[in-house]
């Protein structure tokens, strides 16, 4: 069915008289306030940002005037070394964070789903990192990583693992991984709870059937648990990817993108270009590139992980 005929059908259904038509129209009126809010706080800023990204913006004298420059801001990104460094860091950060958070979150969820782990005490403890305000979390980790006074160095020196303090935020690669650790620690609880909810919705009869068929623990996990968690994993991967792509507070508090741009990501670069350099058009272009990346990623995930429908006449 073509899009035209689909929209024509929708219009016809909207215009239909009778009880069903009135019901549909009333429903649309009821969701209208929410749609207006969504357009105002979501669609409008995205559209405005897109428009600004094609302009060179001048804020002199309190005015906000833009001159159309076409794709110049996007072209600038391709020749900006900081942009490519930011893309590299962003991809690395996102891939590692999503893999670690979802993987570790699944392990934690399975532990919580075990009879021994079902005590509410464990769930309360689990929530502590997630409940911390993002900036408070960043400041806490700044002190943990402090080269002179940080507790991480003190513990490692006490255990004899290191003999001199390590400057965790002093090396570009090490600093990026230090930020990853801080963000993964904070992100695991929420993902673990999402996966726990998914685990608890797996019908027990499937596990009984697997046991009866002689499946090992790994086979049960691989052929029963994982397929049943497909949708929950998809949600976790999409959410965590978006959060990883837009990480900002940790970078701002701990490293300001350094050392040597080693921890600068696309989101932070957009902030720096917009507020530090006053280049609003270029900053908007960077933010829109990030937005497109997130959007495409979400579409890819949904397409890859969507539940497969059985062919007609075939059992599910």
């Amino acid at each position, binding site marked *: 069915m073509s899009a035209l005929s689909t929209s024509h059908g929708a219009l016809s259904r909207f215009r239909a008289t009778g009880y069903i038509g009135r*019901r549909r129209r*009333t429903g649309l*009126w*009821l969701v*209208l*306030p929410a749609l*207006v*809010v969504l357009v*105002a706080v979501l669609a409008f800023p995205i559209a405005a940002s897109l428009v600004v990204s094609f302009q060179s913006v001048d*804020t*002199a*004298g*309190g*005015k*906000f005037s833009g001159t159309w420059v076409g794709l110049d801001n996007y072209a600038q990104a391709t020749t900006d070394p*900081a942009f490519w460094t930011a893309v590299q860091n962003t991809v690395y950060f996102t891939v590692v964070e999503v893999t670690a958070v979802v993987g570790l979150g699944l392990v934690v969820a399975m532990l919580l789903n075990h009879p021994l782990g079902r005590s509410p005490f464990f769930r309360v403890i689990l929530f502590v990192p997630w409940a911390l305000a993002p900036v408070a979390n960043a400041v806490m980790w700044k002190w943990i*990583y*402090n*080269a*002179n006074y940080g507790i991480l160095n003190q513990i490692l020196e006490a255990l004899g693992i290191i003999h001199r*303090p390590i*400057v*965790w*935020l*002093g*090396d*570009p690669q090490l*600093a990026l991984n230090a930020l990853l650790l801080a963000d993964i620690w904070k992100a695991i609880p929420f993902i673990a709870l999402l996966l726990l909810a998914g685990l608890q919705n797996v019908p027990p009869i499937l596990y009984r059937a697997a046991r009866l068929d002689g499946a090992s623990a790994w086979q049960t996990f691989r052929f029963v648990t994982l397929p049943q968690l497909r949708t929950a994993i998809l949600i976790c991967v999409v959410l965590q990817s978006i959060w990883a792509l837009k990480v900002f507070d940790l970078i701002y508090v701990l*490293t*300001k993108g*350094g*050392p*040597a*741009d080693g921890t600068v990501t696309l989101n932070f670069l957009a902030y*720096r270009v917009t*507020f*530090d*350099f*006053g*280049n*609003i058009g270029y900053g908007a272009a960077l933010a829109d590139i990030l937005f497109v990346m997130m959007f495409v990623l979400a579409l890819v995930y949904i397409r890859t992980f969507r539940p497969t429908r059985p062919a007609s006449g075939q059992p599910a």
Partner: protein
Amino acid sequence: MEEHELEIQRQMSRRSFLKRSAGVGAGVVALGAVPSILAACTSSATAAPGAASAAASKAPSAAPGTVALNVLAPAAPDPAPPGVAKFNDATVQAFAKWQADNKTTVTYEAPPWPQLHDKMATAFASGNPPWDVVYMSGWAPEFRQNLTAIGDMIPADLKADLPPSSFSTVTWDGKVYGVVFTLSLLTLFYNTELLSKAGIAAPPKNWDELKTYTKELTSGNQYGWVLNYGAPEGIGGVASYWMAFLQQAGGKMYGPDGMPIFNDTPGVDALQLMLDVNTAGTDPGSISYVGINDATNVFTAGKAAMMMNWPFMWVPAQDPKTSKIVGKLGAALLPAGPAGTASIDGTDAWTITTASKDPALAMKLIEFYLDPNVQKSQSIDTGWLPIRLSVLNDPEVQAKSTNAKVVMDQATHPYDSFVTPDYNEVTQAIGTEIQKALKGQKTAKQAIQESSDLVTAIVKKRK
């Protein structure tokens, strides 16, 4: 019949419920949300800044019968005015009297220093800056189009008591946009006890001594040198420190045409010095210290023997609650390079925004901040040296801030901060290359070459 009536009632109540709900929802949208959103958007986009500030400003209103003056200042311990920092009672009373005499209520917004630039950038871009007087630190050329040129408003006697060179960082295209209110130059601070224990009689006077002493003062967990190399940009970032060494090597940032000219021997030598001192015995954590306070904490804990810092450090370093080096602090000129000693200016200045409804009154407030008694109190109570030459020579100021003489001596040598409208972008580019060199990813020559290319592109964009 009863069933029919019941059915009608059910249909009517469901229908009426749906209708009323839809009507309420649509009414809320029509009457409440949209007009206020549109009004807010319209006022900031089209109204002149002065008129818009009255409608959209978030600044608190003045006491009845007085005019409001709103000031954006940094929070202490950065240079803060009376009403924000802790001044003595006489100054506090003088401030209250000034407000009463001028029928003015001065209201402060005083965020921590690192937040100032972003706050200003956002407010100026919105067209509704709510302040009359704004603190600047190297940003006056950047925000000049939102600032009032006040060169002609500064009284002659005040101008005569200020170092002429102090206006260089608030001047662009021949127009003066502010007044520097504290003589804040980088000088050398050293731990006299650590130097004495190492058998070093006096602080380093030149680059060779700096490298040698740094090495001799480094052992175990104690380092010869510490500084915050973690922030590339801005005044007090690693690029600005390199600019001090650049001038010591006889170099300059820009030529007469405004293009960068630092890709030469002085530029490379200045960075090489930093690398050599780094290898000789700089605290390894320096590359991760984003703010000067991070490095200062290491120094005042007695873990590093020398650092460059702003004059304000003298007072807190003598406070036993925060310092372990009370009575062991010395100050000296920065070690001389091939062209002698040189430094950079902190460029702390007061400016007046174009949004101010009473620039003359705002200027009077700035004159109050620069009043000799207030300047003296600023020095003695907060540690930030005065800018007025007459107050700098005051015996009481010199007695309390024994480093005042050192700073004044440093001020007789070059101290250009090379401030431009794109100072943040320039220093970000240079600072990042310097950090790469400090991490061994590039040689000094490569880093300076790349910096020059990047700054050239930035300057061309400005032109």
